[in-house]
């Protein structure tokens, strides 16, 4: 999207134009849903995080300053919404997981950004989803942003409101945990 076009859409959305906000989100929606899915227990939960985050973004849009990058700002909102949802829902999820004889509802994983043809087999997708749940919140944010979303360390630090070195520490820890959890697959 051209920077001017994005700025124009942001300005219109800030003035309350819902259609402009929808257009603005059209190019980011897949990415934002994938970020939400990186934090959620199930696809339904990810959809819920996405919807809550988008409404929060729409309401907070008048406070957004155009000198910042819109995609970084929106990532921050999705991450914060996901974290607050996870904290609130954690106990319920734990109870629910305890009665679930099997956990058939997990995200399917793909190799690249979007091609559906490169979908991984369900066993590996399930293993990745399970391994991701073992990461702490900050480890998960760092991994989702840097590894899954391709953020540079500096950009991730901006979203996480911390230093680049802090991102590196948690990212390295996250990679080590995942390596250990997924050892039998690689």
């Amino acid at each position: 999207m051209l920077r001017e076009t994005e700025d124009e859409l942001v300005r219109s959305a800030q003035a309350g134009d819902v259609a402009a906000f929808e257009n603005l989100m059209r190019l980011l929606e897949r990415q934002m849903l994938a970020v939400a899915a990186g934090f959620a227990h199930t696809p339904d939960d990810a959809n819920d995080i996405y919807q809550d985050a988008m409404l929060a973004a729409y309401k907070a849009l008048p406070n957004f300053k155009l000198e910042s990058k819109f995609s970084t700002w929106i990532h921050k909102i999705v991450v914060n919404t996901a974290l607050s949802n996870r904290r609130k829902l954690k106990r319920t999820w734990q109870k629910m997981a305890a009665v679930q004889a099997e956990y058939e509802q997990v995200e399917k994983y793909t190799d690249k950004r979007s091609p559906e043809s490169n979908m991984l087999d369900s066993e590996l997708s399930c293993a990745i989803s399970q391994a991701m749940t073992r990461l702490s919140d900050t480890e998960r944010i760092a991994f989702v942003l840097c590894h899954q979303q391709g953020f540079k360390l500096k950009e991730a630090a901006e979203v996480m409101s911390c230093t680049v070195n802090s991102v590196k520490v948690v990212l390295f820890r996250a990679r080590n945990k995942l390596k250990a959890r997924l050892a039998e697959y690689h």
Partner: protein
Amino acid sequence: MTIPDAEEQQQFLVLDYLYGDWDEAQKNEFEQLLIANQSLKQLVDDERGFNEFFPIGRQPLIEPERLEGNRWLLRQNLRKASRSGFSFQNWLSGLAQRPFSIAFQGAAMAMTFVLGVMVASPNSGPSAGISDEILLSAGQNSAPSPLALISEEDFEIYKLKVNHYDAATGDIDLSFSVASETRLSGNVADSKISQLMAVALLDDIDSASRLDTINALQPVVSGDKVYEALIYVLTNDQNPGVRYQAVRSLVALSDEEQVRDALRLALQKDVNSGVRIEAFNALMPYRDEQTLGVFRAQMDVDSSEYIRNQSRFIVEQIDNNSIIL
């Protein structure tokens, strides 16, 4: 570029190589240094090995139907938010951007209207300023409107619009919205509070608040509006965690036919096996035809092994007994 001795610094360097904003020249220089440094090379090879198995960019797959569904839902949510989400503050700031005379007229009209409502209200007089405490301790049995819990100083009028004004006769037709932010303290056993919370479950509150509300309502679940709201949540809420909490709250009321209807529906239709298992457990003691019909269907199709096995066990038990009889 120099290679640090400390292990953590070396790890940082590797992460810079993998995720930093180095250009090709910097990457080449780093790769050259690896030739002479075996321990760092080992570290890089380990990390590269992980990246080959789990490449950068591997992420949850978002299928087009899911994208479409979310787009549609977001549209509905945004429309609702833009209809009801404006604040008095926004309205005032909107007024501030208009010419002073128009802004003044608008504000004066709004204030006049509020005063008019207060003066003309049949409840005006000594009891009009009834406090929340009095309302809450009145113990009336009729289902209250949430508006009954809001005192007059707690609401604001916004989006006032003059639809028609006849200057000759003074007749006027107005439309306006009322917004309120009220804080209530009391006990959840008070029917007015529990019913207000039940009504809120049907409105647009976020999933975390829905969950808090259901948890708080659990001890008073048998209240009229409360269990109806929980049934609504169980059969309509998008968040499986919230539906799960609703089904757990409804278990105690499974003697009610309306609740069993909802449990049967959840057992058949809910995509989440945790929700279905709770619904199934609540229905297990019942042997009426409708419930058995659902067990009969689920014993073949349910993705949960527990539900399939238990349903089959119950159905076979019933069938065997009827053969003996």
